[in-house]
């Protein structure tokens, strides 16, 4: 019998007020792809940091290949043979690929040897990389390759991948899975952290599910359903959003016409000739990998940047020249991508945050003086209608969890009875229960005739939610596809930069369709 590569038992880590890990046990075999599942705050990151030596556990035992060890630092972890690919890449934008790799290596190689080794490894595992380019020039997928190559150069025997696919196109995900399967076949163990259940079903041999700092189940993802794992993760069953069948009328409520916009940032993307209509009662999706013009498009639609009047039209009114407040008066509501600092002010109370975008449409001002009672009542209404878990309208926004604050922001915009709602990444970093509630709210809103525009990098979200969708790539928008008829492959090709689909879409090569399961 072979010795397990890593065995954790009784791991405990407490922060003031929170027990982040409580009696956690985990066993990873050799060459096994092991999933670590859990919602935000379930204790996954704490556990991973303990394994990688960033944190010391308060109690518990770590056995590496049958030997009890203490992992005091990331350096110690690396010398044992543990490599980690971080979710938020630990890369240095102004440095070259070579320098980035060198920083993550303990062995001191000279530049030439290192460049050769990088090329060697990247060819062996299908991860093409030019060692001499600076990181800020690279796509997100290429950046991830740097992290992976950096790990592989140290011949790891355990590779930790923290939410590796959240920023990749479907084709990039497939390529990554091939690399991971190749590594596993060579005997490398992989700890794969994710909350995307269909990926885990497709990739992993074993899974450990965490909730509230504890392990709630060890299971085999190949025999479980996505639904059963989701319920273990959340701890209760929750209603998946229901989408009624509907016939769309051709009645554009929100139109964008030949929108051109130069970028305001050094490494930004200029918009070129963007045109689309969102019909009455339609949910229209815009997919694409971040950095392809999303922030520019959202700024132009919300009024944070102005355009020619006819570029943005609501119900026949040209509003391209109007600022955000005037657009709101025309019935436009906007949920920005960034909750803290853009959608809400963390240090203000919920009542004040409710006021910030709703003062006109909800009459929360009287000759420039704040009507506190009304603002507070409005915040209370949002909290009740959208089941926001908060102590009340006087709670600070920063005291809410990501999911609850997002529900509050969504509720604030919806209760202003908009004609058009623009939502950017409405469920980014939000737990599954809150995500389902937000999706349901958007579907209900469209049911009342509101035109809803969702800009998201989460393809599953758009496939499940939208009636039609288009892909933003390099500042240009593809022609819209009817979501029900579109395939993930089609969308993926558009995300990868193919602007017009060929008549015949390439078939997938006999691989089971992995990316379509409902979370």
């Amino acid at each position, binding site marked *: 019998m072979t010795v397990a590569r890593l065995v954790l038992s009784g791991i405990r880590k407490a*922060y003031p007020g929170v027990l982040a890990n409580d009696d956690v046990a985990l066993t990873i075999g050799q060459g096994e792809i092991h999933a670590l599942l859990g919602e935000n705050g379930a204790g996954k990151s*704490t556990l991973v*940091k303990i394994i990688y*030596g*960033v*944190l010391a556990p308060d109690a518990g035992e770590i056995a590496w290949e049958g030997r009890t060890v203490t992992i005091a*630092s*990331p*350096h110690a972890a*690396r010398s044992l043979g543990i490599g980690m690919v*971080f979710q*938020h*890449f*630990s*890369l*240095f*934008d*102004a*440095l070259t690929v070579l*320098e980035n790799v*060198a*920083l*993550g290596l303990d062995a*001191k190689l000279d530049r030439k040897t290192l460049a050769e080794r990088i090329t060697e490894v990247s060819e062996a595992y299908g991860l093409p990389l030019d060692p001499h380019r600076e990181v*800020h020039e690279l796509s997100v997928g290429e950046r991830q390759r740097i992290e992976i190559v950096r790990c592989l150069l140290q011949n790891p025997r355990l590779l930790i991948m923290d939410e590796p696919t959240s920023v990749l196109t479907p084709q990039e995900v497939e390529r990554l899975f091939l690399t991971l399967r190749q590594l596993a076949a060579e005997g490398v163990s992989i700890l794969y952290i994710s909350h995307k259940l269909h990926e885990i079903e497709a990739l992993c041999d074993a899974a450990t599910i965490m909730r509230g700092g504890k392990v709630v189940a060890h299971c085999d993802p190949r025999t479980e359903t996505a639904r059963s794992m989701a319920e273990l993760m959340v701890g209760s069953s929750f209603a998946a959003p229901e989408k009624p069948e509907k016939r769309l009328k051709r009645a554009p409520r929100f139109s964008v016409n030949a929108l051109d916009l130069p970028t305001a*940032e*050094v*490494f930004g993307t200029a918009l070129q000739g963007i045109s689309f209509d969102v019909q009455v009662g339609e949910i229209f999706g815009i997919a694409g990998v971040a950095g392809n013009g999303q922030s520019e498009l959202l700024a132009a639609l919300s009024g944070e940047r102005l355009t020619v009047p006819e570029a943005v039209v609501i119900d026949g009114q040209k509003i391209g020249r109007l600022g955000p407040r005037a657009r709101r008066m025309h019935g436009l509501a906007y949920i920005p991508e960034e909750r803290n600092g853009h959608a809400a002010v963390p240090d203000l109370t919920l009542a004040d945050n409710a006021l910030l975008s709703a003062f006109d449409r909800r009459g929360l001002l009287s000759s420039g003086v704040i009507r506190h009672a009304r603002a507070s009542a409005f915040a209370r209404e949002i909290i009740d209608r959208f089941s926001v878990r908060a102590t009340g309208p006087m709670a600070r926004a920063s005291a809410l969890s990501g999911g609850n604050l997002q529900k509050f922001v969504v509720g604030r915009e919806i209760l202003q009875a908009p004609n058009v709602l623009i939502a950017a990444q409405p469920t980014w970093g939000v737990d599954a229960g809150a995500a389902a509630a937000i999706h349901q709210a958007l579907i209900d809103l469209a049911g009342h005739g509101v035109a809803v525009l969702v800009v998201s990098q989460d393809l599953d979200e758009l496939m499940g939610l939208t009636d039609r969708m288009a892909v933003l790539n390099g500042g240009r928008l593809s022609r819209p596809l009817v979501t029900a008829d579109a395939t993930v492959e089609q969308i993926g090709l558009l995300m990868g930069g193919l602007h017009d689909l060929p008549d015949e879409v390439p078939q997938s090569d006999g691989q089971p369709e992995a990316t379509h399961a409902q979370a």
Partner: protein
Amino acid sequence: MDPVTALLVTVVTAATPLLFAAVGELVVERSGVLNLGVEGMMLAGAVTGFAVTLTTGSGTIGIIAAAFAGAAMALVFGFLTLTLLANQVATGLALTIFGVGLSALVGSGFVGTPLPRLPRLDLPGLTDLPVVGPLLFGHDVLVYMAVLLTLAVAWFLARSRAGMILRAVGENHEAAHGLGYPVIRIRYFAVLFGGLSAGLGGAFLSLAYTPMWIEQMTAGRGWIALALVVFAAWRPLRVLVGAYLFGGVTILQLHAQGMGLFAVPSQVLSMLPYLATIVVLVVISVGPWKGRLQAPACLGRPFHPTH
């Protein structure tokens, strides 16, 4: 020495204190720390260098003491901002004010005391060459140290592994921490180097440039050095060019005043180097070359290792 050579030689001496202070601050900023206390550290170096040289009679000991005085000031700054996480801008400003007061207190007994200028290196044969001789070979040791230090810093940042780690810390301290690099310790070293270098710049003022002690004798050079770092886009060799350029402006306005060239009040001419600083900063921040990647991404952001 003909007048033009004399002029050029004075440009070199005017540039040297700027170069010391700016190259030190450059290293500090590349590690992600903004220390606005350069002026204060220079003054501490100036008064210490003067006092120690006067009492020991040794310029070498004076120079070393000045470097340590600058570093001691930097250590206070480092402790407040890196360990106690105080606001870097406020602490830097306080350090400058503190340096002005402290140096005036320490130096009150030395005002008006003359001191022999640091000896110039005299290389028989070379120093006697026309133009090139006095320009390249007729200076004191600090002038050469400043240039060599800048070249060494340029090599260190671009070529050495430690320099690469320092840049990485300034670029993304979270990631550097995640990879296991001691962010705070590296920043302490950078801040101390900045103090050391500013102290040397101060020593040059009180030992070589005008060998005496006057209150606030740095006259804003610490601030110009800060501007120089931005002007140079955080690149050491550009700091070298920038320091000599600003040194040139300083000397030109002095000569213009002396010769009564322009029918403007001398105060306007004295403003020139400072005006040039403002103009350069404005041009840099609005031009097409303004870029996020010029400044170290973590510049001025406090680092608090979370979990």
